[in-house]
């Protein structure tokens, strides 16, 4: 196609803006919304001279970007998807870095009584019973997969739900916006919730069930499958992410006086 | 370049959508003088001129110039009934044909300025956008633009149709000069006075054919066909 060739030529002409060291990493919207990246990226640039370009997408798309080789590494939080990714020969290994947790958010008035729930499954059963408006990510992301697994453990199936269940197919911020707009319930990662600027009438109602913990892992894309991947840069970043400096930065990262992530990488 | 005359037109015709606009025409034209084409409205005068010039493609027959057709075309020029004003200034319009011939810009503009002054569009008018000119001024510009390449043969399609007496006289003066310096003119007109003033020979066109073709004096003294006589009388001829 003529357009493509001309575009490629233009690329060559303009492509001189090649940065010294740069790599592409796909991260999830939940991670990005936490704001932790704004803290880590400048330090990475200062320490390693490495510019990490973040593509902020849902876990599903992050996995697919890794499979296609369009990025050099991925940082996601969905163990099952990660293991499938590795089984398919798309990544070299997974390195656990840190975890945060999910929380249930809903209208302050709490018509479903979620605040009194004894467990995550219990909270969801209360929502289903009251048929209060509930917003789901619906985008195949780590958060979405987590939500679906929780419904399952509560013996409920989203397929059978009525209009009160809204799958928006969007990132965490957009989903929270929708929940605020319809004054409904939503499961969000704590970081996105704390950083969210449009809370409206919503409040954090339930958290603490261990099943809500959310493990982030770093997976380099397999160079055997995609030779162009910048393996040395990827390795440098991995070493940095499990270093003591990263540990300090991650553990001390707070929003409104609340810590979000717990560093748990093994050396 | 060798002279393009004499030109021999044999059985030439132009068709559009199956209808015959003009033709068949058989003519022999030599290289001297001014030929005036007259006839009622819709008779095909414009089409005849355009056919001879080569802007209308022949549907049949042929037109043979004394030199190769390409050379012949370069030695001709045409002044249209509604002159085309290019979206440029007066002087740039006149210079355009020279620029097409790859004449340098300064030279072309200088020559165009001389012509502009000759037709009365010099001074301030030079830079005026041509689209703002009046009817008479447009005709004069078209004439200057046609003459700047010093054509051997100049076609004019009713050049004074919408002009007042003074403008008509100015144009006729230029035409007389140009004819005297050797340019062959083939011109259509509705103005019988003008025809008599300028013609060396007359072509009377009726229903797309050349009904009569005679030297001017003879024609105006006594035309041969009835329709020509009626036409000169001022009657409506169909």
């Amino acid at each position: 196609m003529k357009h493509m060739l001309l575009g490629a030529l233009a690329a060559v002409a303009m492509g001189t803006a090649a940065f010294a060291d740069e790599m592409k990493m796909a991260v999830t919207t939940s991670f990005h919304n936490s704001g932790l990246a704004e803290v880590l990226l400048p330090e990475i640039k200062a320490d390693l001279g490495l510019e990490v370009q973040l593509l902020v997408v849902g876990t599903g798309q992050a996995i697919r970007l890794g499979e296609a080789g369009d990025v050099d590494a991925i940082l996601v939080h969905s163990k099952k998807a990660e293991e499938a990714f590795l089984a398919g020969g798309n990544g070299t290994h997974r390195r656990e870095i840190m975890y945060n947790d999910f929380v249930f958010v809903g209208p302050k008035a709490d018509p479903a009584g979620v605040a009194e729930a004894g467990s995550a499954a219990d909270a969801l059963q209360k929502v289903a019973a009251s048929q209060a408006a509930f917003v789901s990510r619906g985008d195949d992301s780590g958060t979405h997969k987590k939500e679906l697994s929780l419904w399952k453990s509560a013996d409920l199936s989203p397929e059978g739900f009525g209009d009160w269940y809204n799958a928006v197919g969007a990132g965490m911020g957009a989903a929270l916006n929708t929940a605020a707009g319809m004054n409904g319930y939503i499961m969000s990662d704590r970081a996105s919730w704390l950083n969210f600027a449009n809370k409206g009438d919503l409040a954090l109602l339930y958290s603490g069930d261990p099943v809500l913990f959310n493990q982030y892992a770093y997976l380099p894309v397999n160079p055997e499958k995609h030779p162009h991947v910048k393996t040395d840069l990827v390795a440098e970043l991995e070493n940095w992410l499990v270093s003591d400096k990263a540990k300090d930065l991650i553990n001390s990262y707070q929003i409104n006086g609340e810590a979000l992530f717990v560093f748990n990488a093994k050396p | 370049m060798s002279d393009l005359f004499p030109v021999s037109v044999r059985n030439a015709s132009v068709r559009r959508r199956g209808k015959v606009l003009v033709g068949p025409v058989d003519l022999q034209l030599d290289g001297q003088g001014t030929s005036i084409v007259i006839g009622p409205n819709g008779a095909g005068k414009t089409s005849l001129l355009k056919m001879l010039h080569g802007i209308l493609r022949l549907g049949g027959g042929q037109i043979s110039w004394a030199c190769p057709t390409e050379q012949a075309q370069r030695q001709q020029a045409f002044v249209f009934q509604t002159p085309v004003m290019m979206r440029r200034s007066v002087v740039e319009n006149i210079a355009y044909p020279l620029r097409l011939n790859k004449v340098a810009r300064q030279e072309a503009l200088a020559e165009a300025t001389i012509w502009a002054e000759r037709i009365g569009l010099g001074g301030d008018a030079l830079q005026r956008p041509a689209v703002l000119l009046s009817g008479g001024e447009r005709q004069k510009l078209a004439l200057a633009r046609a003459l700047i390449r010093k054509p051997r043969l100049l076609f004019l399609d009713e050049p004074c149709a919408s002009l007042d007496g003074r403008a008509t006289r100015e144009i006729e003066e230029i035409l007389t000069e140009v004819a005297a310096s050797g340019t062959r003119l083939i011109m259509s007109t509705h103005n019988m006075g003008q025809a008599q003033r300028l013609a060396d020979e007359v072509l009377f066109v009726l229903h797309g054919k050349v009904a009569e073709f005679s030297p001017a004096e003879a024609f105006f003294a006594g035309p041969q066909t009835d329709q020509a006589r009626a036409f000169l009388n001022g009657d409506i001829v169909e």
Partner: protein
Amino acid sequence: MQAAWLLVTLDADLVEITLRSLRVTLSALAVACLIALPLAALLAVRRFRMRRATIAVLNALMGLPPVVVGLVVYVMLSRAGPFGVLGLLFTPTAMIIAQVIIIVPLVASIAHQSLRDLWSDYHDLLISLNATQFQRICTLLWDGRRALLTAALAGFGRAIGEVGAIMIVGGNIDHATRVLTTAIALETGKGDFAMALGLGFVLIALAVAVNLSIHWLGKTESEGRW
């Protein structure tokens, strides 16, 4: 209001994003014009068998949904795709490519309309003067430059406000491929309306400037200036 404050103080992010938006769209416009304008002139003066069909296709392509263009370009440029080896995905170049594809039909169509009108005017004269095909095209492009500029501005207006395609092929990467429209989408999604509005004001200002220019150009046409 916070948004206005960001504008007045020329917030660094805002400036960076605006400049990148301009860079991407102006580059796309330049490339698109190089393709579309001569194409439009050629279609106006040259008779060939497929001409009507080509013009019809060109007009139809104006209705291409931009986001679909983005999807196709993404698939082409992805490592898994035919042009993956160029490594262009998620770069400003990919965004430029997508925008070129989107605005070429628009610019060519508008330009062709005007040039066709101009040609029907100039036709007899240029043929009588033995102008070559190349000379005819050059004359049309030059004399019709006002209309061509209008076509280009229309293309700019369409591209600067486009968000779907460039979001897909650019990835909205901070400090790399984030532009006005994708930033607005992002900030709105985060609930940060101040920044989104600030960006929105800039975008509106650009769009208004473009439309005023088109209007002014139209006026100079009727007054016969250049």
